[in-house]
């Protein structure tokens, strides 16, 4: 330890370092007092919670139970938070038939409901782009705010865009705290308790698929989907980024994602990319398939196709 030479101002009895030090001690003691008086152990444990991938079985169980307690307090509803592991030999893939989508936005709103997304400010994982048939897939001239009496409109087609679950995901690469990663079944997930809300991933994602909770999410208690997953549709907090997970809470239990279930035209297809007999593989083999923004080398697991 190197001794520090003390230079004291002749007119003052306390130097800058002393001042800083005492101020720090003072602040911390006031802060700790207020913390101890107003905080319960759940809040402290939330603060000190480890990264999802570093939790062992026991810790994970505690975390899930704590979240359930906190949601119960917040929404006065029994919300079940699970953490279903990925199924072996499964990599999820998604197909969307551009020749059939009519732009009705049923998927958008089914997704909001299934995934407990904030109603206000609005958070939506799916954005349906209206495009002109003459121009083809042209994002610059697309319109997500169309609102005619009836869809589809003459001369237009509709392209829903959501997380493409890239194999070479730019969002995962840029996260400074590794709060987002690719699961073995190909789903890019976020640890919503680890995310620091820096929004680097939003800047990196070329599909605009990540959404930020700019304010406290507003979620009506009677519209909550109580079957949730830690990495999926559990209610989020202000200041974290969230994204489509192919409805991880559904697909890991064998169900189709909510958007697939609701689509009135059957434009949305879903299945296991490693299973040759799956619908998605059949489509890839037999139809004209393309991936969005191929030139960026993001290698999505989300395939657009023309079923006609």
């Amino acid at each position, binding site marked *: 330890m190197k001794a520090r030479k003390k230079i004291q101002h002749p007119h003052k009895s306390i130097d800058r370092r002393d001042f800083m030090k005492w101020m720090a001690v003072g602040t911390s003691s006031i802060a700790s007092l207020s913390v101890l008086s107003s905080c319960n152990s759940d809040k402290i444990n939330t603060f000190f919670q480890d990264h999802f991938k570093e939790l062992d079985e026991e810790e994970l169980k505690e975390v899930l139970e704590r979240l359930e307690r906190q949601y119960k307090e917040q929404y006065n509803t029994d919300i079940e938070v699970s953490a279903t592991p990925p199924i072996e030999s499964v990599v999820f893939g998604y197909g969307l038939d551009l020749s059939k989508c009519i732009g*009705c936005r049923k998927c958008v709103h089914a997704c909001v409901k299934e995934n407990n997304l904030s109603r*206000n400010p609005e958070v939506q994982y799916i954005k349906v782009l209206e495009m002109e048939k003459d121009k083809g897939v042209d994002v610059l001239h697309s319109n997500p*705010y169309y609102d005619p009496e009836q869809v589809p409109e003459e001369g237009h087609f509709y392209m829903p865009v959501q997380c493409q679950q890239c194999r070479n995901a730019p969002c995962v690469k840029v996260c400074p705290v590794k709060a987002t990663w690719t699961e073995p079944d190909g789903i890019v997930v976020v640890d919503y308790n680890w995310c620091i809300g820096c929004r680097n991933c939003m800047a990196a994602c070329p599909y605009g698929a990540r959404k930020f909770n700019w304010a406290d999410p507003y979620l009506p208690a009677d519209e909550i989907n109580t079957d949730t997953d830690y990495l999926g549709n559990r209610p989020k907090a202000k200041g974290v980024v969230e994204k489509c997970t192919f409805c991880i809470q559904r697909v890991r239990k064998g169900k*189709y994602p909510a958007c697939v279930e609701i689509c009135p*035209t059957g434009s949305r297809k879903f299945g296991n990319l490693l299973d040759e007999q799956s619908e998605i593989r059949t489509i890839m083999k037999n139809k004209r398939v393309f991936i969005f923004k191929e030139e960026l080398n993001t290698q999505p697991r989300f395939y657009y196709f023309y079923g006609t």
Partner: protein
Amino acid sequence: MLNNKLSAYEMKNIPFCIIVCLLFVEFTGCKSDAEDIPDSIIEHIEGSDLMIDSSILIPVEAISMDYFPCSDCHSELEPNPLRRELIDMHDDIEFDHDSENRWCLACHNTFDRDSLVLAGGKLLGFNESYKLCGQCHGPKYRDWKLGIHGKRTGEWNGNKQYLLCVHCHNPHSPKFKGMQPLPAPREPEHIFIDSIYESQEKDSTSP
């Protein structure tokens, strides 16, 4: 002197302590608001009354039929195979399905109205209507069987429910009908933080 005892390392840690403490204070400030509210906009598809056994499709009810069984009336009527425009009954059916070349008895069986009939004369139940559609729409029928065309619900790796052709396409007028889109997302210039809190206060005060 106390500050002489503090190492450079400890001094560096002081701002960190302050930040941690401030974070704690900030953290405990979070509120919980449990509120109830708006109307649900989501409709749920109720098509799960179809059962699928691997490759065999057994729809329990193909389409809701106000008139079924047809034989209730038709058993007492003399079949008239002459192509004509219907006037007394079924005139509410809008027929726009190659109407130039086809009419009712191209699909409905002349002598047993509870059945459909294939071009080769084979009778079909209404729950097998997809085979009838497949007579003309071969590639679509093939795609439907593969799961490319049409809609499946249920489990991606297990039991699936198929919708039949006639669930989405009215067989008399098969072009898929348009619909009103659900609400558009809010445009960025119409998002105001104030309005967010106002609406939430309004909601929380309502019973």
